[in-house]
């Protein structure tokens, strides 16, 4: 089977890319293929990238406070494109209440500062494996 393919994304006007880059590196070191979108992507562009790359997951990083706007917009796009099987997770400076709300909307996990890399890697692996078809075509 091909390695898992993950899009690591930065949305909106937020330039804080330290976390996104560390996660990208950790996922790559764990044997996944990582596509880092670079900064300032729109939700539409992020979902397009995921579809074009046939990605198993999208990790979105937001530290600007715009998470309650941008996470739902990505979810909406995933739905519109019929791509709900793409594992959508994220992280950043996200208050606990907002994390709960985002998870209710369908974001699979929210990782806040201090989350161990191994926990994120394990989570991505497990969730994406669940979504894989039993037989690859």
């Amino acid at each position: 089977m091909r390695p898992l393919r993950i899009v690591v994304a930065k949305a909106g006007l937020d330039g804080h890319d330290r976390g996104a880059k560390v996660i990208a590196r950790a996922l790559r070191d764990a044997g996944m293929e990582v596509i880092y979108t670079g900064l300032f992507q729109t939700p539409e562009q992020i979902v397009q990238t995921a579809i074009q790359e046939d990605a198993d997951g999208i990790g979105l990083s937001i530290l600007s406070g715009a998470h309650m706007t941008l996470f739902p917009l990505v979810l909406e796009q995933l739905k519109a494109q019929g791509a709900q099987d793409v594992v959508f997770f994220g992280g950043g400076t996200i208050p606990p209440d907002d994390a709960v709300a985002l998870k209710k909307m369908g974001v699979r996990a929210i990782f806040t500062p201090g989350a161990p890399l191994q926990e994120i890697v394990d989570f991505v692996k497990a969730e994406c494996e669940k979504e894989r078809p039993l037989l690859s075509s």
Partner: protein
Amino acid sequence: MIERPPKERTGPGSGAVDRTISDVPLKALYVPEDLAHLDYEGDLGYPGLYPYTRGLHPLGYRGRLWTMRQFAGFGTARQTNERYKFLLQQGQTGLSVAFDMPTLMGFDSDAAEARGEVGRCGVAIDSLADMERLFDGIDMGAVTTSMTINGPAAIALAQYVAAAERQGVSRRVLGGTIQADILKEYIAQKEWIFPPRPHMRIIVDMICFCTQEMPRWNTISISGYHIREAGSTAAQELAFTLADGFAYIEACIEAGMDVDSFAPRLSFFFNSHIDFFEEIAKFRAARRIYARRMRERYGAKDPRSWQLRFHTQTAGCSATAQQPENNIVRVAYEALAAVLGGTQSLHTNSMDEVHALPSEKAVEIALRTQQVLAYETNVTNVVDPLGGSYFIESLTDEMEREANAYFEQIEQYGGVVAAIESGFFQKEIAEASYRFQRSIETRDRIIVGVNAFEKPEETQEIELLRITEETEREQADSVRHVREHRDTSVARATLERLQRACRDPRDNLMPHLIACVNAYCTEGEIVEAMVEVYGRYVERSVF
């Protein structure tokens, strides 16, 4: 009897006892031989004397305390104006403006790019009308203001000058600082607009304008803070920041300015991280490297040109989301390091900033932390109390050595702009931040509450500041109102003149920008006009 050699401890956190947080090797003990090479007058000097390793002022903080300057801004100009008045009443001595992301990136609040971001991590300033509201009831001739903005810095400065002049305050008496450090944006913070080369011209124009018309204004704040927050080591922060500073200085000299005409108004901005002694060494090394370069390489003759003045902010990236009250303690140590390093001004972070913009309570504790330091601990009573310490002086030397090695590498690339274009800084920082993160994973290093001493079922009970979507609507309406109620033909004419000036390198952009803001052109419109001439920067991402 055989004596057993003393053994170092084992267990969590013991994997990194032989190095600093930046991986600078450490001995267990420093002794007089470590300083055998040191020449007191040449390498340290008395406080107030070249090369200023021991500080800029002969009396240190006995002469004057540092300025307590808390960075603040959120929501609309009116909301932030209230916070400023509160901070001034609490005894804060200077203002510091945090702008929201759309403002920092040159978009108006009603732009599609701004959705979800208006007023979130700072205040939204779209036009002169907002700048006037921001300082409503505050005498701009009496306060000093620091503005943290870079891509559109020249526009924000134009708005500040115009707002002051409407209060009847002359630009000649305005005191404060504008960050305007675009090089570190490409390196670390990523809030750029134009490509580096035209942007250097904008900065030279600003420095030139301020030198002639705003004698009390600090023209640029060359910043390592964001480089450190992006994950660099202390030596990288030091080296990259100073390299940026030297690049601006060289650009101004190339533009025909005399170094002593502008250098005294340059200032720096550093991070104070959690590795206590390393930070102190970094600050001391910064002063020495700068003094030497200014005098020896650029031939500066005015002692004020040799003096590196800096603002410090405690490290946001050292704060943890877990057990946020612990951040109060971290901030206190970091603030102490900044003070022992001789900072001119200080911002202490609030404990809740990992989650959101700080609440009023958290900001107050952060300010009180500085006041306790300044008035109760007595660390201010003796100048540079750590000077001459075997360890501190060795580490200061080491910082200088590492920085010099980086300067050589940067020169090999052909200078800072060329090194940015080839991704050198970005790659170095990404490497360092990954290395650090791995050391947390392996528990070579311990972060209390994160990879040790965790509380399993932690609940958040701190009160957070919430910015509502109402702010975004209100601000978007307000910028539309400005556009509808101004003289469009005047606004258009000023923008056209600005574009002509952009194409003519002999013209200074600042007077044109002031004309644009006075005609109530919005920030987004001014940026758009300039982008038509200069283009937008696109980064080649590396991780």
